């Protein structure tokens, strides 16, 4: 390929595609052609860049100038100014909230410069649909090294020494798992890549598939070599169509190049991979359940031992690893266990990808070394909480994890410390919650989730989650009773003890951890019938402050329940009996007035109809106010 002076790395991960990345791509191609630049400027459609909150986005190389929130209208200007005339366009650059100066360079943006990229080393730098790009970034060098100079035992030894632990949640040492499987006498053996990723709020596995599928293939092939398997499965959830498509392309290319299949690279080692899709069941992420799902059996977990490494799919020894675990393997092999084990903490080595989402300024995927503190993640990488709200908690580990409160913000993140505070690593979702999040509501949400997803095999898990849900629902509806909290705790511990698989054993965690750290919120719900975050519908009321209402009629018009009295010049009044508490009035009330209030735990002051509006100053034609929802 000819030399170029600019390469545009346009993110085409699911997030940016939803934001219109393919339209941007087309516009860029047209504009570049129009200016006669195709020989000088090239466009690469990469996988997820990570900074999903800024999408659709692109990075212009070689300077690495970062442009976010692109719109098709911006493209002609951008191409002419920057790519033709060399004047980077400030208004499209990233500007941190509450600051004025944009940060042009990707490397200077705090979201990026605090990260450490091992697994995501190729993110935003290669076209995931081109094997050549992966090769150019030393792709398949690890496989080459393994096949030419290492015995399977050497590989296992190296992985063991590196201290790599499973990224699927439990953190089981990967080398040990491989060794157990290798030592089994029964053949054939299998390797399964677990990309079921059912944790709501986590999407790093999807992102790895979409941005660097070959890294997973390479890691899985090495795993196959290490344990002596000739066949493997990639289990992906069907909610990820783009990931499935890119992985299939990558598999086809690897097969075409002979990096998969018979006699790989002429070394005599044969290995093949096949994609199997899940169909939307959280429990299928559990390894024994996943195996049943592929086999076409009823996808319920079974008792372990025997572990899948001993008796797995089709009754044969099977290694199941998470996507991220496998993607770590090539870099450990190329750079050595020694190097890898220097990263991280004493017990947790390497890096971990988190999806930093929720009430946070910079949403996206981040890869950070183990042992980083929550504070660094939330305030430095994440850029704090939007709208100057108060940070309340971070939820990690999905439905199996717990909420870590503000008071523990200096906690270093690794497997053990998270467990200690009653949460867990899980697959790496990190959902930030602010003062507007009700912790009782959140724990109800998680129990609803696990209650839905429980396969129903264990009584304590199936019926216990029902009982938890019932009590939590009652509390959020203002029907809480004294003794409820103690009951939740006792039942939670019983469910932990009595369940067979990880789903049941961890299902009470969100309840137990919120009870531990946010007991006052439960108490407010139960005794004062008040929801401090003003979320629980039965405990709140919407009310229009007669002092602030300027009679703009917007809420009167927008209310779907037609519960707002309003006339010109007259203070609007919400009919509490008709109000469905949908919150539309609060959304549409112009921020200059902010007359709609949420009340909780206090009587709603009665307001007469027909009070004249108190005009502070004449609002400028409020009827045509453009309302930001």
């Amino acid at each position, binding site marked *: *390929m000819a*030399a170029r002076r600019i390469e545009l790395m346009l993110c085409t991960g699911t997030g940016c595609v939803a934001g219109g990345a393919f339209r941007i791509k087309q516009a860029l191609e047209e504009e570049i052609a129009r200016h006669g630049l195709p020989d*000088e400027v090239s466009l690469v459609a990469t996988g997820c860049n990570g900074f999903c909150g800024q999408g659709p986005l692109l990075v212009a190389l070689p300077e690495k100038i970062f442009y976010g929130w692109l719109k098709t209208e911006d493209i002609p200007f951008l191409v002419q100014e920057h790519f033709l005339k*060399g004047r980077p366009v400030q208004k499209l650059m990233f500007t941190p909230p509450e600051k004025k100066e944009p940060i042009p360079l990707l490397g200077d943006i705090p979201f990026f410069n605090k990260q450490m990229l091992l697994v995501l080393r190729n993110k935003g*730098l290669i076209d995931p649909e081109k094997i050549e790009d992966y090769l*150019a970034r030393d792709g*398949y060098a690890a496989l*080459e090294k393994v096949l030419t100079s290492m015995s399977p035992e050497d590989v296992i030894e190296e992985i063991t020494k590196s201290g790599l632990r499973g990224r699927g949640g439990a953190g089981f040492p990967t080398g040990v798992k491989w060794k157990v499987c290798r030592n089994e006498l029964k053949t054939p053996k299998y390797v399964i890549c677990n990309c079921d990723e059912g944790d709501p709020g986590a999407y790093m596995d999807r992102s790895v598939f979409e941005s660097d599928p070959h890294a997973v293939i390479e890691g899985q092939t090495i795993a196959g070599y290490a344990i002596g398997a000739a066949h493997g499965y990639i289990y992906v959830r069907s909610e990820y169509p783009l990931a499935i498509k890119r992985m299939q392309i990558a598999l086809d290319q690897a097969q*075409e190049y*002979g990096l998969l299949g018979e006699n790989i690279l002429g070394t005599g080692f044969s290995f093949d991979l096949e994609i199997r899709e899940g169909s939307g069941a959280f429990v299928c992420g559990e390894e024994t359940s996943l195996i049943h799902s592929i086999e076409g059996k009823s996808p319920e977990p079974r008792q372990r031992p025997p572990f899948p490494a001993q008796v797995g799919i089709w009754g044969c020894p099977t290694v199941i690893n998470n996507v991220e675990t496998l993607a770590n393997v090539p870099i450990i092999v190329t750079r050595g266990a020694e190097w890898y084990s220097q990263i991280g903490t004493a017990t947790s080595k390497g890096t971990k990808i988190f999806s930093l989402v929720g009430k946070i300024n910079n949403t996206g995927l981040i890869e950070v070394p183990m042992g980083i503190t929550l504070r660094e993640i939330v305030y430095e990488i994440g850029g704090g909480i939007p709208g100057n709200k108060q940070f309340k908690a971070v939820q990690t580990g999905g439905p199996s994890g717990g909420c870590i409160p503000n008071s523990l913000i200096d906690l270093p993140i690794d497997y053990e410390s998270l467990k200690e505070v009653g949460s867990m690593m899980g697959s790496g979702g990190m959902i930030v919650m602010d003062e507007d999040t009700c912790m009782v509501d959140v724990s109800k949400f998680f129990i609803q989730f696990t209650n839905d997803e429980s396969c129903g095999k264990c009584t304590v898990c199936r019926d216990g989650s029902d009982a938890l849900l019932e009590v939590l629902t009652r509390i959020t509806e203002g029907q809480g009773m004294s003794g409820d909290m103690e009951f939740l705790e006792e039942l939670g511990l019983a469910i932990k003890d009595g369940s067979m698989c990880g789903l049941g054993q961890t299902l009470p965690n969100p309840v137990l951890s919120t009870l531990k750290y946010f007991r006052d919120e439960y108490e407010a719900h139960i005794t004062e019938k008040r929801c401090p975050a003003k979320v629980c519908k039965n405990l709140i009321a919407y009310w229009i402050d007669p002092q602030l209402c300027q009679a703009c009629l917007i809420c009167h018009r927008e209310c779907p329940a037609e519960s707002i009295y309003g006339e010109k010049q007259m203070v609007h009044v919400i009919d509490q009996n008709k109000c469905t508490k949908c919150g539309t009035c609060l959304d549409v009330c112009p921020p200059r007035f902010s007359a709609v209030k949420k009340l909780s735990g206090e009587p709603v002051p009665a307001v007469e109809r027909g009070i004249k509006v108190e005009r502070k100053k004449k609002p400028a034609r409020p009827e045509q106010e453009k309302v930001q929802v």
Partner: protein
Amino acid sequence: MAKLTLDELRKKRAEAQKGIYLREGEFRGKIIVHMGTCGIAAGARGIVAAFLEELERSGTKDIMVTTSGCAGLCSKEPMATVEMLNTPPVKYGELTPDKARNIFKEHIVGGTAVAAYALGMGSERGA
């Protein structure tokens, strides 16, 4: 396509690496072609093309070619600035594609500035 052997894989990788050097991010120097309206009118596009051609032919990987706006000396366009690491930048004016090739050979590859076309050494900002 036939399956690869080890050697072929290495060859393929080396070839692919040529295509992505811009992404590796380590550069020894930078050629900035000034592309204001004046520059483009005077033929700056041809200069860029010439530099890129040379870059490809020589297989150099650690030089970036970029553009910037008008340098404020419109009468001397097309112009280019060459910034090599640890040496003061050199501005060249009234370039032609041939001159550009010469600069590439002598300054970028050879390491000595081409005094004949140089307008000045160092940046006016003193950076």
